[in-house]
């Protein structure tokens, strides 16, 4: 008896999984007033992106529902939008998305910049970037688009020179043509850069992470940059760029509810 009940439960669970997997990510338009709302799945990796998605869910117009899908990494967030398993994601800036498109024949587009933030270099020991000692260790991110962003910021402040033939947004440490102070670059994931702050001479970091050390770019950044190219974007498939559902999402992502989340956060600013 017990066994058969277990088998039934397992079968039920399996069926539920199949049904969920088969359900279309989104219908284009709700039919009538009484029809069940259309669910738009939106993938995000971590706060504050997840908080923004939740707030947009509260703000979205009648006829739609936003379902937050939390995923473990930024590449997965793109894979599942590109395959149509979820409708949209909110996890990246446009250059990161373009790298994905190029590598995967992807058709993703950014449809709405939502927030942006000041990136900066910090130092535990220095007050001025000009005091960087000979052979100093500089910790920068290890993923392509943030590596380029960090190097571009250093080049803009004449700490290094980048090969002019290379797209600065795609630069790597190999594209450094002049390094007058013989800086050593330590490349680690964004999540490890806070630990690197304790021992490297200069550290790149996002405000959402450096705040854990009590630092802010406005107060503590030695050099900072705010580039609209890097605003966090709502991303959908190209074929959905002008759909009614996307319009509803864009409205929800620029609502007062989302504005409140961004202003409460303290490290980010609205980008619309």
């Amino acid at each position: 008896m017990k066994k058969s009940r277990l088998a039934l439960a397992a079968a039920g669970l399996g069926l539920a999984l199949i049904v969920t997997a088969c359900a279309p990510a989104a219908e284009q338009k709700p039919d009538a007033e009484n029809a069940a709302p259309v669910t738009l799945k939106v993938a995000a990796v971590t706060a504050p992106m997840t908080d923004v998605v939740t707030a947009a869910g509260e703000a979205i117009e009648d006829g739609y529902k936003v379902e937050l899908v939390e995923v473990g990494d930024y590449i997965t967030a793109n894979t599942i939008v590109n395959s149509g398993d979820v409708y949209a994601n909110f996890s990246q800036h446009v250059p990161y998305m373009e790298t994905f498109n190029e590598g995967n024949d992807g058709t993703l587009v950014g449809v709405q910049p939502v927030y942006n933030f000041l990136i900066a270099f910090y130092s535990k020991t220095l007050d001025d970037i000009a005091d960087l000692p000979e052979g100093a260790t500089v910790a920068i991110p290890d993923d392509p688009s943030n590596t380029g962003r960090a190097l571009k910021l250093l080049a803009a402040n004449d700490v290094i020179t980048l090969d002019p033939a290379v797209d600065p947004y795609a630069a790597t440490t190999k594209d450094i043509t002049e390094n007058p102070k013989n800086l050593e670059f330590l490349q680690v994931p964004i999540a490890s850069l806070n630990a690197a702050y304790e021992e490297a001479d200069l550290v790149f970091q996002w405000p959402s992470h450096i705040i854990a050390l009590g630092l802010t770019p406005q107060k503590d950044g030695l050099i900072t940059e705010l580039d609209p190219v890097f605003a966090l974007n709502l991303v959908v498939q190209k074929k959905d760029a002008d759909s009614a559902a996307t319009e509803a999402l864009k409205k929800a992502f620029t609502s007062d509810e989302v504005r409140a989340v961004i202003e409460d956060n303290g490290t980010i600013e609205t980008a619309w």
Partner: protein
Amino acid sequence: MSWLTDLLAQYGDDFAKAMAETGYMMLVSLLSAALIGLPVGMIVFLTERGGIAENRVVNLIANLYINVVRSFPFLLLVVFLIPFTRFVMGTSFGTQAATLPLCFVAVAIYARLTEQILREIPPGISKVARASGATVPQAVFLMFLPEARSGLVYALTSAAISLLSYSTVLGVVGGGGIGDFAMRYGYQVYNDNLMYLTIVIIIVCVLAIQAIGHRTSVRLDHR
């Protein structure tokens, strides 16, 4: 095969560096497994109830170390140990510093494997050790180790393969190595050919480790 020569031309130097980093991490962690892990495993075996050097406190402490270290998801052990690594090595980043957490887990894995091998040698040997009045070092070096050596080599092979796998996440503290190479130059930039090629090379390494370990173990098996 032109894609292969293209890859080699573009990434050959980085790949060689990554292999050297992995080699360094493997060598140091395997040495610590053999020189520290094996004695710790032996101590657990000797001091447990009914062992020839029964000692509850020592047994508890050694077991606690093994269990606690093995409980950590490895990535979190690395992050957890950052302040300790910085205190001991002066820095917590780079290949040398990244090897320290790998040694912690190497000792724990191999100690547990050693204990398991020793438990499987015939109980008669412990009885002979007792009856003949052998001292603990005599029993260890003349009876237990010779009896268990084939299994210990085989277990070290298994530990080596686990450590190769563990070493692949050390990019999180700038440790580099072949796993970090596959992540950064393959996965993150969608260079699938490079990623799969690297995985194939890792598989070849594992097959080689397994073959060497198996042969050595069979040769040492005197039963």
